[in-house]
């Protein structure tokens, strides 16, 4: 992509695209901590499922990253 506009676009793509997944991962982790506090014996399954769910939330940020990388380098 030519010039400075492309750079701004790439920055905006990953910056805006990071907001949603960031909030989502924060919510996920908060709920997981909460349930850990309520039920400490279930630490194993909670942790596993939290990591899996975080992976799904993170995928959205990865899409934004891909768009940014494509704008910047292709």
């Amino acid at each position, binding site marked *: 992509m030519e010039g400075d506009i492309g750079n701004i676009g790439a920055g905006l793509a990953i910056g805006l695209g990071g907001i949603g997944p960031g909030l989502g991962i924060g919510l996920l982790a908060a709920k997981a901590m909460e349930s850990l506090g309520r039920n400490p014996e279930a630490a194993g399954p909670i942790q*596993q499922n939290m*990591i899996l769910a975080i992976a799904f939330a993170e995928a959205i940020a990865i899409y934004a*990253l891909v768009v940014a990388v494509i704008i910047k380098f292709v």
Partner: protein
Amino acid sequence: MSGLLGNPKILTVIVVFAVLLVLGLAGGALGNAFGGGFLGAPLPHIQLAAEPVLADEVLPGWKLTNTMLATWLTILVLATLAFFATRRMSEVPSGLQNLFEVLIDFFLNLAESVAGKEKARRFFPLVMTIFIFIVASNWLGILPGFGTIGRFEPAYEVIHHAEDKAKKKGEEVNLDTVKLAVFEGEGAVTVQGFGSVGDEMTGADYEHMAEEDRPRAGLLVPFLRSANTDINTTLAIALVAMAMIHFWALRALGVFGHVGKFINVRQGPIWLFVGLLEAISEIARIISFTFRLFGNIFAGEVLLFAMAFLLPLIGIMPFLGLELFVGLIQAFIFAMLTLVFAATATVAHDEGH
């Protein structure tokens, strides 16, 4: 606090750390503006596609790339480890065999808790292979030597490539955007030495110089680059994983049972639409498998380059730890998602409701 500083060991560590920090600050790109920069190297050329190790085509239309070499190296390392771990097996394991048994035992228990005892045994070989391969290639990728030792690509070749790329898009090449680094010494194998942080020029500068004044400018094409920074590697693993998931599902549910999840005409139009959405989500899974791993590892590589450029010696150290963690977590996520998808795909639709 005075007790801490009174301890000679802790005091030494703090002093060494402070000296390294000052050296890094003065020697890196930040210090370069004030006459320092004796440690730094210029920011490497960051390229999305893997670079060919040899300039010529090995077979017609096929070039050997550095990520491919790294993949082979990973396979070699894993094969060697597996050979030595299983060479002299004993009832009471020790050494390498013990390590592998602990690893496999941990994952087998995890798989059994997710997929059930009988199915876990069926899925386990692929899931474990994916995990071990990804973690090994990620950790090999942050070893020194990856991305720093490479082939010298002379300036005229770099400019030629830039022209080719611009021509494909139907544009004129802008030589101001073509960055070149200046190298010392001779030979085809090269590294970017200490204090070369300012030795940069653009393609336009190079073209304007007289033939005999031109320095030895060009780009470093590394021999090795972390395997998962190539989108082809991650796509290949994702395709293998998804193909196996569908194979297992076909075997467990039969052709009609499995395909019926996606093309569902018996239960009315809403279920037809649901089936369509399921089919789309299968494709989305391949894409997110591919880009999750690729994006994380590629971004990590760029982060390490940038930190080594800004703050050599000290800036890179916490991020190396981060990369070890990210490499492990991404491998774990890839393997776990494969397992979970396989476990859900082999269950018939009605059972779940």
